[in-house]
């Protein structure tokens, strides 16, 4: 039987340029008819080694903006983790008001990201009406982001030792207006996503990640919570204003009473987290303490503090897709970071993908893969910034580049044609 299978099966590459995968990653699926026999993940399509970029932007403050551009959607989570790591390495205390502002921005990002995901997921199963509906609803949070930070996507709010901009009392009504808007439509969203027959048909028992596998692969974020593991950095470890709030990790059994660990469960978790985020922002607005928004407003002075700092620190935060982790080490006397390691949530969430897809159908690949909310740009882009002694590079190696192109072309000829 297996011999027959190997004969009839052929490999269908999904990605890197494929509408199902909005991001460049390659899944090599070995299929038999419509059934998936094996999956191999080939990452690195957009790896570009930020370490060398760091050579030019060689101080910690500039690296915040690099961190921000690791991913256009998690443009709050990466800097959030990064500044935490730097503060711990340099022993900088953060004003309490800044912690609250950071939390508000991070939660706005979560609402945005989850709505965006919901739209993309609907699109993946060919439900374009819902895609348009959700993205229309999403524009409200884009407006709010622009109102608070000045830009729709890139937020540039985080600074080592605090935040760049205050959220003042006059801005509260506008924020509350957005929150009320989302509260008012939440029931509609819930009906659309949890009660619709076709959505249920396409997502129930699809792409199942068992609790066992979720623990085995140290999966993070809504993906692991949908498998029934209450892992949530906001709940587990003190950071930001979350340390003051009583956050509880959301698992799908709150709604359905059971945990299946399928795509549907991931929809439940994300949907409820939108609600949770609304409540968190509300609490933060109520409890926001008065005071400074940064420990050191003068950047030059901050830079010299950072230059003198010696030590290491980790920054963890719960990005919309899962735990975002930064590790930073600083050496005294060096302007640059001695070591910077980033782990984006998708890094961990990619590993269980084969076990989720195997035995399923091609038709389930887009939605199963999308259900972890993959952010390949996060995963690939920022591997490490390892700043050494400031070597300069100015030569170009066109030959190497050409060889690389030729070889890749040869290898990829049959992939996307």
């Amino acid at each position, binding site marked *: 039987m297996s011999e027959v299978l190997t004969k009839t099966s052929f490999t269908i590459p999904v990605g890197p340029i494929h509408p199902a995968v909005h991001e460049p990653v390659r899944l090599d699926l070995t299929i038999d008819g*419509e059934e998936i026999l094996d999956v191999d993940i080939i990452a690195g399509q957009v790896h570009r080694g930020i370490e060398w970029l760091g050579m030019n932007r060689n101080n910690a403050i500039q690296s915040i903006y690099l961190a921000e551009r690791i991913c256009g959607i998690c443009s709050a989570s990466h800097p959030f983790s990064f500044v935490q790591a730097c503060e711990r390495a340099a022993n900088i205390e953060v004003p309490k008001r800044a912690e609250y502002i950071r939390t508000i921005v991070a939660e706005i990002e979560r609402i945005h990201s989850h709505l965006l995901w919901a739209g993309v997921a609907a699109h993946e199963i060919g*439900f374009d009406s819902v895609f348009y509906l959700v993205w*229309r609803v999403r524009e409200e949070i884009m407006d709010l982001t622009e109102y608070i930070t000045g830009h729709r996507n890139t937020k540039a709010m985080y600074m080592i030792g605090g935040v760049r901009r205050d959220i003042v009392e006059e801005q509260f009504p506008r924020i509350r207006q957005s929150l009320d808007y989302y509260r008012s439509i939440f029931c509609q969203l819930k009906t659309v996503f949890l009660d619709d027959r076709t959505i249920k048909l396409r997502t129930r028992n699809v792409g199942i990640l068992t609790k066992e596998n979720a623990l085995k692969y140290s999966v993070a974020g809504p993906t692991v919570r949908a498998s029934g593991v209450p892992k949530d950095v906001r709940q587990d470890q003190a950071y930001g204003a979350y340390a003051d709030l009583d956050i509880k990790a959301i698992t799908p059994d709150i709604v359905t009473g059971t945990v299946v660990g399928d795509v549907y469960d991931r929809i439940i978790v994300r949907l409820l987290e939108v609600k949770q985020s609304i409540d968190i922002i509300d609490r933060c607005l109520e409890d926001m303490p008065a005071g400074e928004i940064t420990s050191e407003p003068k950047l030059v002075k901050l830079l010299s503090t950072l230059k003198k700092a010696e030590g290491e620190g980790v920054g963890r935060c719960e990005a919309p897709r899962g735990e975002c982790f930064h590790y930073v080490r600083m050496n005294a006397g060096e302007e640059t970071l001695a070591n910077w390691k980033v782990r984006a949530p998708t890094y961990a969430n990619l590993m269980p993908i084969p076990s989720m897809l195997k035995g399923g159908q091609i038709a389930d690949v887009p939605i199963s893969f999308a259900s972890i909310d993959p952010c390949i740009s996060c995963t690939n882009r920022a591997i490490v910034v390892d700043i050494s002694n400031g070597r300069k590079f100015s030569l170009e190696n066109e030959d190497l580049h050409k060889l690389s192109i030729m070889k890749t072309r040869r290898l990829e000829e049959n992939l996307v044609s």
Partner: protein
Amino acid sequence: MLADTLLNVIVLIAGPVIIAFLGAIFGLLYLGVDRKLVAHMQGRIGPPIVQPFRDVDKLMVKESIIPDSAIAWLFKATPILCLVGSISLLLYIPLFGQNAMLTGFGDAIVVMYLLTIPSLALVVAGFSSSSPYATVGAQREMVMMMSYEFPLAMSIVVIAWRIGLVTNLNPFMLSTMAAYPIWGLVGPLGIVGLLILVFSMLIVTPGELGKIPFDVAEAETELAGGLLVEYSGRNLALFYISNAIKSFAVVSLVVAIFFPYNLSPILGITATVPAVILDVLFFLLKVFVIMFICVIVVRAAVARFKIDQASKFYLLIMSAVSLVGFVFILLDVII
């Protein structure tokens, strides 16, 4: 004598051309209406109704690339085959309240065979592209073809059988169906059965046309544009037009079988010109209503099925539904 023959020849040549032309125009127009309405349902403004014409117009100017890996002659032939199949379909179906162009040459069975030609052309196109996406798309199209065939055949055969009980004419001729509108022949139970059959036809239509939720063969997110992934320029435009014509033809077929009424006899209008105009408008309205129900609303309201779900849906549920319809009509006859 000679003039007559000449006229016949001209009619035989010009007729199909005109019908093809009208079919293409109305097909594209309905496609435009479809896109506009769906956009409105999705909270958007949407493209203007003439958009499909613009699309075709543009595609005609574009370069038609034939991929190196494709089987060139097959690759080029299938769009034409698809178009010819769609047009010949039109010739057998009564349009605009008039008799079909080729009345007397073929019946509903021929139409059912012709219906598969555009789909087959698509399948061949998919295989000839030698792209993995197109190949999977072609496999899916074949599965779909086999799945919706039974409920479709069931509806047509049952109605023809019922009509055959009251007339000596060939009941499978669409003209006979028009002459003996089915609704007038049956009692209350039969009406129920007919409603069920209409329902199953309406459900088959989006599958036949490859629209959401049964657009598995072209599932954009799964198969990168599906069957036609390698087509471009004029070849793609031909597929585009044949798809529009086919939509028009299939919906017209539903109209011809179930709603062959004309307004002019009912209103007692006998003058030729007003009667024809009235019938044409009424026909277009009927087509629009059917199109609206089974394509537009459905497309805006549901997600895409998986291939096994779609195929099971047709093979099991819709077949069962059409059988139930048949039983009702049978009971109606017996009682």
